[in-house]
């Protein structure tokens, strides 16, 4: 049984796996994904599932005010990991780390499920409009594979390390805003409304955080 927090980057050793520095740890999941892609390796998939699924479920529960959170979390988990299985061959370690790739799939899937749920509600009250079927697919707006350019790879690795090390040094009010935006699915405007802050304050907290993380955004 694992104890403590289950973080990808500073994952401690457990019975099956030797302790490894974070880079090698990430490399381990790359190998798992490649095994799933090339030989449909169920054992490798099982390991990926055990490592990432508690995060996917946690990510589902972050949506505030969700009715039927448990079935929603279950569906998000199932659909995200199914996609990991079917799309493993399109994973490209030069473009993204495994956790970034899986986060992206979970993020898109969550938007998709929330959108379907909203439409379902609209349907029930007879506000559904004809012609909504041909609206654009989510993957055309939020790409899963094409965001990065190969030549950015080194820069990405650097920033990933930087982010990992600096994130815990951020003041609480900056981490709070980042968590709401990334995990609770709240835009800057929604965070401002919730915290009863001017939009400018939320924007500057995010900016200060990005600045401390030394990201090129806003440079």
């Amino acid at each position: 049984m694992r104890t403590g927090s289950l973080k990808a980057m500073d994952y401690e050793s457990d019975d099956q796996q030797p302790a490894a520095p974070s880079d090698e740890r990430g490399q381990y999941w790359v190998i798992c994904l490649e095994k799933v892609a090339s030989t449909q390796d169920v054992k490798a998939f099982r390991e990926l599932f055990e490592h990432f699924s508690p995060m996917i479920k946690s990510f589902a529960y972050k949506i505030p005010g969700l009715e039927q959170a448990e079935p929603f979390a279950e569906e998000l988990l199932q659909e995200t990991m199914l996609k990991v299985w079917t799309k493993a061959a399109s994973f490209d370690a030069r473009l993204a780390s495994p956790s970034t790739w899986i986060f992206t799939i979970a993020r898109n899937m969550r938007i998709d499920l929330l959108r379907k749920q909203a439409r379902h509600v609209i349907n029930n009250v007879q506000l559904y409009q004809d012609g909504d079927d041909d609206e654009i697919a989510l993957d055309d707006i939020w790409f899963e594979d094409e965001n990065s350019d190969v030549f950015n790879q080194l820069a990405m690795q650097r920033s990933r390390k930087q982010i990992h090390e600096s994130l815990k040094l951020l003041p609480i009010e900056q981490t709070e805003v980042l968590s709401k935006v990334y995990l609770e699915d709240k835009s800057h405007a929604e965070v401002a409304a919730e915290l009863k802050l001017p939009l400018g304050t939320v924007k500057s907290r995010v900016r200060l955080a990005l600045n401390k993380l030394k990201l090129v955004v806003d440079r």
Partner: protein
Amino acid sequence: MQKHTPMVKYHPDARFLTDYAAGCLPASQALCVATHLHYCPLCRLKIGELTELGAELFMQQQPVKVEKAALEKLLARIQASPQSPISPVQAEPSVSILPKAVNKLTSGNLERLNWRRIGSNFRVSRLNVGDKQRETSLFCIKAGGHVPHHQHKGDEITVILKGSFSDHEDKYEVGDFIVRTNGETHKPVASQDQDCLCLSTLDAPIVLSNWLLRFGLYLFNLGTPSHQTAA
């Protein structure tokens, strides 16, 4: 992918980029960001970083226990459907100069869209991006023509897809991401050499300064589905 346009000068700010990377930007605005990314390698790099940040926050969450049955259920599903992992789709060399999302929305053929003229130099076609709070459209200004003089009630984002236009502040080129906020009045003029095609999304209906054009927009609105909200 389109050869990179070195001219991109106006970019989404950190707020738009962060909300986009987090997935919480409204779909119509996200479409504008995605369109800008097509033209802007610098912002693609930024989005890459911001997605890394998201992944880091994602992995630092408090894990939630997953029942053993969940994996078995998924494995059963995988076995039941013959669909094994699919090979990556070979990226087709893009023949179009327009971003993928815009191509999808227009089925690759701009002329087949339902265009409405407002004035002699301006036509507009509404797009359906599943965002009921905003109006998203493509608009085209004839070379040398201008957009009807208008004032914004809500925020407007414009991304240039072809050609260029100028207003009292600057000249804008392909890929530029231009934000106009509530209350600003402006009058963009397309450059003389070619028509200017733009993608735009608007928080609230614009107010035309000229009554005749306002009547034109009234007719335009009659022909499109009224906006209904779920609330």
